[in-house]
C-alpha cells in the first residue's frame, strides 16, 4: 500500500531532510559568528594590517611601509634565535613527553601503587596557571636566597649551587626543564588512550616471548601512534603559546638567550613605538606554527597511507 503524504510517507522524509531556515541558522550560528568576528577575524585582520605599517601604540599617524617590517624581522638575529628556541623547546618537550611521559603513563596504567598521588603530582601543574609555576620556579632558583641553592648549601654541596637564571646556558636548561615539567597533558592523553586499548595484542606479545622492554618499545609504543600524533601537535602549538613560562621566569634573558617568539613579540608591541614591527613578528610566528603543523600532519598522513 502506498502511503499518502498525509499519512507520513515521502513528505515526512522531505521535511526531515529539508535544510534549516535562515532563522534557525541565525539562532544557532549567530552568536558564534559574532564571537569569532570580534575576537578572531577582527583582531587577526587588524594585526595583519598593522604589520604593514609603521605605527605606535596610539595607532595614530600610521605610515604604510609595505614589507619593510618583515624584511627587518628576517634580518634580526634575535627573532631567528627566538624561533629556533621555540623549536628547540618544543623538541625537548616532545621527546620528554614521548619518553618520560609515555613511561609514567604506562606505569600509572599498569596499576603501580600510589597511583592517585602520582596522577596529582604530574597532572596538577597542568591545571595550575603557568605564570604561577614560572614564578615559583624563579623564586626557587634565585641564586642567593632561592630554596634550591639554600638546600644545596645546607647539605654541603656548595659547588652545585649555581646562578641558575643568570648564567645563559643554565637559564636555557632551566627553561627546558620547565617545558618538561608541564608533561601532565601528554600523560593525560596517553593514560586515556591506554585505558581503552585492547590488551590482547600485549598478551599475545607476552606469549610470543616479549620482555617488558620489547613490549613497551615494539608493541605498545607503535600501537599508540595516534596519541603520539596528538601529543606532538599539541606540544608544538603549546611551545608557540608558552609565553608565560619564559616571561615569568627569565623574561627572555639573560641577554636574550631564552627569548622565544612570544616574549619577542610582547617586548616590541608593548614598548609602544614599534607596534607594526611587533605585529609583523606575530604574523610570521603564526605562519611558522601553521607551516610546522601542516608539515607534521602531512608526514602523519603519508605514514598512515603506507599502513
Amino acid at each position, binding site marked *: 500500500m502506498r502511503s499518502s503524504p498525509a499519512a507520513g510517507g515521502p513528505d515526512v522524509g522531505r521535511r526531515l531532510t529539508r535544510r534549516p531556515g535562515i532563522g534557525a541558522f541565525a539562532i544557532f550560528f549567530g552568536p558564534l559568528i559574532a564571537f569569532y568576528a570580534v575576537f578572531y577575524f577582527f583582531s587577526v585582520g587588524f594585526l595583519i594590517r598593522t604589520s604593514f605599517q609603521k605605527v605606535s601604540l596610539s595607532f595614530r599617524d600610521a605610515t604604510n611601509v609595505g614589507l619593510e617590517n618583515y624584511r627587518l624581522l628576517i634580518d634580526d638575529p634575535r627573532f631567528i634565535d627566538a624561533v629556533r628556541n621555540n623549536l628547540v623547546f618544543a623538541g625537548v618537550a616532545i621527546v620528554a613527553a614521548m619518553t618520560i611521559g609515555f613511561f609514567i603513563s604506562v606505569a600509572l596504567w599498569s596499576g603501580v601503587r600510589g597511583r592517585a598521588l602520582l596522577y596529582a603530582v604530574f597532572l596538577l601543574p597542568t591545571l595550575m596557571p603557568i605564570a604561577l609555576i614560572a614564578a615559583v620556579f624563579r623564586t626557587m632558583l634565585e641564586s642567593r636566597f632561592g630554596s634550591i641553592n639554600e638546600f644545596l648549601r645546607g647539605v654541603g654541596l656548595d659547588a652545585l649551587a649555581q646562578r641558575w637564571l643568570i648564567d645563559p646556558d643554565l637559564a636555557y636548561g632551566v627553561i627546558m626543564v620547565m617545558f618538561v615539567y608541564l608533561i601532565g597533558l601528554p600523560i593525560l592523553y596517553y593514560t586515556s588512550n591506554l585505558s581503552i586499548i585492547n590488551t590482547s*595484542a600485549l598478551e*599475545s606479545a607476552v*606469549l*610470543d616471548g*616479549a620482555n617488558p622492554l620489547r613490549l613497551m618499545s615494539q608493541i605498545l609504543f*607503535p600501537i599508540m601512534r595516534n596519541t603520539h600524533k596528538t601529543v606532538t601537535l599539541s606540544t608544538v602549538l603549546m611551545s608557540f603559546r608558552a609565553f608565560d613560562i619564559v616571561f615569568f621566569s627569565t623574561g627572555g634573558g639573560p641577554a636574550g638567550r631564552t627569548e622565544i617568539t612570544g616574549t619577542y613579540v610582547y617586548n616590541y608591541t608593548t614598548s609602544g613605538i614599534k607596534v607594526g614591527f611587533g605585529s609583523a613578528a606575530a604574523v610570521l610566528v603564526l605562519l611558522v606554527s601553521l607551516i610546522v603543523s601542516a608539515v607534521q600532519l602531512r608526514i602523519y598522513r603519508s605514514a598512515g597511507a603506507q599502513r
Partner: protein
Amino acid sequence: MPSLALEGLTKSYDGATEAVSKVTLTVADGEFLVLLGPSGCGKSTLLRMIAGLETVTSGELSIDGRSVANVHPRDRDIAMVFQNYALYPHMTVRKNLAYPLKLGGVPKSERNARVEQTAALLEIDSELERRPGSLSGGQRQRVAMGRALVREPSVFLMDEPLSNLDARLRMQMRSEISQIQRRLAITTVYVTHDQVEAMTMADRVVVMNKGRVQQIGEPTEVYEHPANLFVAGFIGSPPMNFFGARCAGGVVTVAGREIAPAGTLEADSAGSVTGVEAVVGVRPEQIQFGAAGPDELAMAGKVAAVETLGAETLCHVQVDLPGVTVEAGEVTQGDAGANSLLVRTPGNRSDLSGQDAELRVAVGSLHVFDPSTGKTVVSRHGTPRDEPRGSEAENRRGLEDSQT
C-alpha cells in the same frame, strides 16, 4: 603421558568468588579439546590460566609432564589465538608471523622459511606484505592462527577465534581449523560458547557452568548421555523439553505410565522445595506425530505454533503434562499447569498449525533427572546412570565436587 594436565585448578578473586573451581582434566597428545559453556562460566579464565595470563589460586598445571603453574607465559611453550586476533597493527603479515620466532632467537633464514611454509599452509602467502588493517576478517583470523602455528608449540590455545566471523565464513573456518589441527596433530584447547563448533570440531567436549566442569566426553556422548540437567538443557538446539513426573513405589511415571525405575531418586528428591518429584527430558527430534506403539509414551495436544525452517519444522505443541522451569541446570519452579513441548519434524509441516495432534515418544529415549540435585538418574536408552560417563577417573572427583 598427557600433553596437558590440570589437577584441581582453581581461580578465585578476593578469596571469595571462584571463577574456576577445582577443574581436573587431561588432554592427550594431539587431542582437540573444546571448553564449552555459557558466558561467564569460567571457560576463558581457565584457558587464560593455562596460558599463564591469569594466576592460579590453587591446583596443579603441567605441560608435557613439567609443572608450569608458576612458570612465566613465554616459557610455557604454548601459543594462543585470541577472539579479536590480537595482531600487531603496525607490522606486516610477514613480521607478525616472524615476531615470535625473532623473539625466540630463530636465525633469519630459518625464520623466513617457516613463515613462508605457514603462510602457504593457511593460504595467506599472497598477503605477506600487507598490514592487518587492510585484511578481511577471515584473513586476519588466518594470520592469527599462523602466528600461533609458526612457533610449533606444545599446546595450542584458541579463545573463541570464530566469534567475529560471519556465519558462512565461520562454517568454512571450522572445517579448516579441524583439518589443520588433525594434519599437524597439535594438542589444542579451544574455547567456545557455540555448541555447533564444539560438536563438529572436538575430540572431547568439556561442558562448564559457574566455574565447574559439568561433564567431559565425546560430543555424541555428551549429547546422548548428559550428566545433569544443565548439560541436557545446554547441549542441543533447539533445547531439550522438560516436564514433571511422579515418583512413587520405586518407579517414575508420566501420564500414569511407568517409564523407568527411580533408582536413588526418591531418597534424593525428599528435600526438593519445588514440589516436583522427577524431571523428565526429551529431545525435540525424539517426539513424533502419530499413534503410540507398545514401547512408546502417548501424548495428546494441540499445535499452538509452527516455525518452518525449510528442511524441517519446529512445532510448539500444548500438552497436558506438568511443566517445570529449568534455569541454568536448576529446577526453579514446579508448575502443575499445561506444558508446551517443542517437536522437530522433517519437511514442511505448516499444515499442522492449530491442529489437534497425537504425539508419541519412545520410552527408551526419555531422560530422568533428580529435581533437587539436577543429576541424571536415567539417561536415554534406559541406561541407569550411577556414574557420570565419558570422562577420566580423575574427573569423577571433579564432578562430585562440582555437584556438592
